[in-house]
């Protein structure tokens, strides 16, 4: 039977946008080390494949002011994951960094370090940064156009792989008697004059234990899909509809052979926000409680940001003005398209759409009992909609503990999830091969 893969997406407070308001959350602690240590250790207790941290490069704001009720985004991913690396032994550590606002040499060095410090547990969620505001924090007048961003991302990743492959295995001799530490014949400098980057040199670190970090990707647009087919080993997808998820996964897999890649290695892990109760009624009550904590201003703001369309002056209880939104000529992400279709179909109001977006940030969610959740997860897995899930607890830590203690044992009992780790590296958990040192080298 196919085994499922599980990640947990950390977040300050929780993934439901009002989750941080739950009484069990200690808001003064959500930026501290213990908060993240606890999540990572819970994931390891539950034999999760990985812990995932996102990345944003601009504050949540409107007209130059932060959103008062808007909660916080992830703080720096590499810092969090390197801090918890010492408190865990097996669980993978997936950090998000943008190829649009970084330089390949620095990022190759940073991930090589994380992979060494964690002895082969790192993953890199490669993003091109979707929000235009980031440009204004990085001395740029406007955000790079999407096609260009993905071209840059491809070259960025190629340069990193080439740097990671620069040291052959066995380059470190460490022969005390003759005083030779490195066999320099086994260290290869790269000399890459490219379209976006020109890089000459070698990392001053041996090859990472995993060869290179597990390559994760999160975009769902056509350009993102093609990029995923080229580089992704794991896709963190925002999919809330099973049929669409099946199509999406098939579409990426179909494109992989064209890039010389085996589709069987790909693991698609949609986000999943579970709201659990011992009965369905209890779970629904929990959902209602959370949605009542949600400040309406947050929903309208998140909706406006995602659509690139200001909804502030429309009546909140009126229908989502999809005709006006489409007429604005924006380039909509698949998530937004999906939401607009649903709003038209179900006649959703702006307020209702706001709750939908804010509650799970357009990722999938599930409300019910642990048994019913496992049925739901199994159905997605069986029908080819995914290879597992990136769990997004509504708040930390209760909801994560609930999943680990009540859902994981059912998954294990039903043969859907591992009872023990079989290896120590993230590539082991995901069944991914370790690339050869020469695999990433760019042609001279």
């Amino acid at each position: 039977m196919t085994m499922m893969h599980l990640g947990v997406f950390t977040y300050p407070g929780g993934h439901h946008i009002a989750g941080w308001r739950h009484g069990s959350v200690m808001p003064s602690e959500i930026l501290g080390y213990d908060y993240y240590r606890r999540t990572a250790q819970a994931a390891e207790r539950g034999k999760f494949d990985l812990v995932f941290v996102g990345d944003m490069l601009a504050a949540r704001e409107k007209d130059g002011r932060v959103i008062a009720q808007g909660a916080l985004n992830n703080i720096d991913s590499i810092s969090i994951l390197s801090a918890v690396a010492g408190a865990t032994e097996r669980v993978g550590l997936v950090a998000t960094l943008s190829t649009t606002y970084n330089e390949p040499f620095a990022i190759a060095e940073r991930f090589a370090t994380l992979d060494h410090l964690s002895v082969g547990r790192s993953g890199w969620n490669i993003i091109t940064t979707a929000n235009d505001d980031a440009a204004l924090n990085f001395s740029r007048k406007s955000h790079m156009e999407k096609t260009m961003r993905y071209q840059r991302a491809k070259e960025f990743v190629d340069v990193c792989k080439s740097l990671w492959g620069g040291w052959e295995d066995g380059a470190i001799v460490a022969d005390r008697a003759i005083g030779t530490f490195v066999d320099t014949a086994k260290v290869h400098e790269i000399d890459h004059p490219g379209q976006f980057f020109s890089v000459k040199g070698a990392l001053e670190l041996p090859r990472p234990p995993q060869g290179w970090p597990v390559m994760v990707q999160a975009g769902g647009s056509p350009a993102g899909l093609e990029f995923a087919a080229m580089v992704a080993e794991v896709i963190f997808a925002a999919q809330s509809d099973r049929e669409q998820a099946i199509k999406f996964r098939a579409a990426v897999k179909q494109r992989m052979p064209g890039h010389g890649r085996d589709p069987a290695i790909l693991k698609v892990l949609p986000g999943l926000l579970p709201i659990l109760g011992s009965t369905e009624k209890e779970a629904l009550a929990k959902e209602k409680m959370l949605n009542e904590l949600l400040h309406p201003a947050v929903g309208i703001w998140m909706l406006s940001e995602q659509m690139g369309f200001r909804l502030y002056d429309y009546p909140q209880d009126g229908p989502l003005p999809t005709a006006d939104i489409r007429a604005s000529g924006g380039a909509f992400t698949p998530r937004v398209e999906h939401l607009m279709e649903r709003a038209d179909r179900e006649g959703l109001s702006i307020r209702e759409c706001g709750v939908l977006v804010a509650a799970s940030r357009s990722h999938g969610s599930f409300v019910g009992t642990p048994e019913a959740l496992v049925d739901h997860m199994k159905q997605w897995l069986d029908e080819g909609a995914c290879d597992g899930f990136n769990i997004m607890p509504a708040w930390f830590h209760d909801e994560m503990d609930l999943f680990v203690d009540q859902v994981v044992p059912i998954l294990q009992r039903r043969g859907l999830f591992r009872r023990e780790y079989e290896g120590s590296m993230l590539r082991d958990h995901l069944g991914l091969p370790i690339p050869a040192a020469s695999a990433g080298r760019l042609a001279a």
Partner: protein
Amino acid sequence: MHLFVSLAAHGWHPAAWRVVERPGFEAARPYLQAAKMAERGGLDALLLGLPIAARAAREIGGVDGLRLDPLPLLGLLIGATERIGLCGYWPVDVAEPFHVARVFATLDHLSGGRTGWIAGLAGRAETEGRFQRADLPYDGPDALARQVELIDVARQLWDSWEDRGFVVDQATGTFADPEHVHPIDHAGRFFTVRGPLNVPRPVQGQPVIVQRDVPAAAQPALAASTEIVLATPAALAEAKAMRSGWQALAPDVRYVVSLVVVLGETEAIAATRAAELDALASDRRPRFVGTPEQLAVHLAAWQAAGACDGFDILPALMSIDLALLVQAVVPLLRRRGLRPAGYAGRTLREHLQLVHPVSRFAA
């Protein structure tokens, strides 16, 4: 007396790796051991990143000639320690101020206010090939001007959240107070940054700003932002002159002397150890060779002479010299009243008795 230790995997003598039992590359273990040892000795902070110009450090060879990125290493040590300060080198040459501010604000929160930023320039030789960017100055006055502006923008971003900007009031659902979180709207020669930062104000207000081996020509421009300056004077007179030079520019700056140490229970043991290491590889840097008692006397004498405000110890061999520093030298300094009995505070600023900066945007 401030007391720092520069961390190495094996040690700062170029032959350190040739006299240890496990000479190969291990990323985490040696640093975790050294960090815990230093914390047992109540040291003020660990310094991560190359303590001398990178080229010279590479000549050290062995594991310590390799370069782990100091920032993930700093992150790792947060979980392994509770009180000791953690200063990391992030060279400014190709850095973006928003990244620096975001990462250090994160590290400062995770560590409960224990971070410092070694905000140096790596220089053209380190940077040019790896980051071939037509817009970067790499060296000279323009590189210095960029460095000054970058540090300033990072500090503005830390200030963009006032202490009272992060409200997190669960009852009203108010996360941040927009009246106390500010765009910075910086438009300078090298950087245009709107802000605000998307991490609340660091625990320490701002991480401590550290500089190492600053050329004389750059000192006036960096004086305003520098709180700790690490230097490698050859003799006591030079140290006194350099310290007064800095104090003329920045009265509150702390001038800290970096020193390689080779220790032994007797003078003869220390001398033999130094000779054995030197026979394997030569080391021409200024250093101290002697007993823990002699080192304590030496450090006290420099401090009393007004040559410095403390020391950055570079153990020739971590396993021996850091252990002796913690077990033997620190108790002697305590007896002289030069070191506190333990950590009185929680943050690096508290250890160093540096003021908590008030946000420039606070009314």
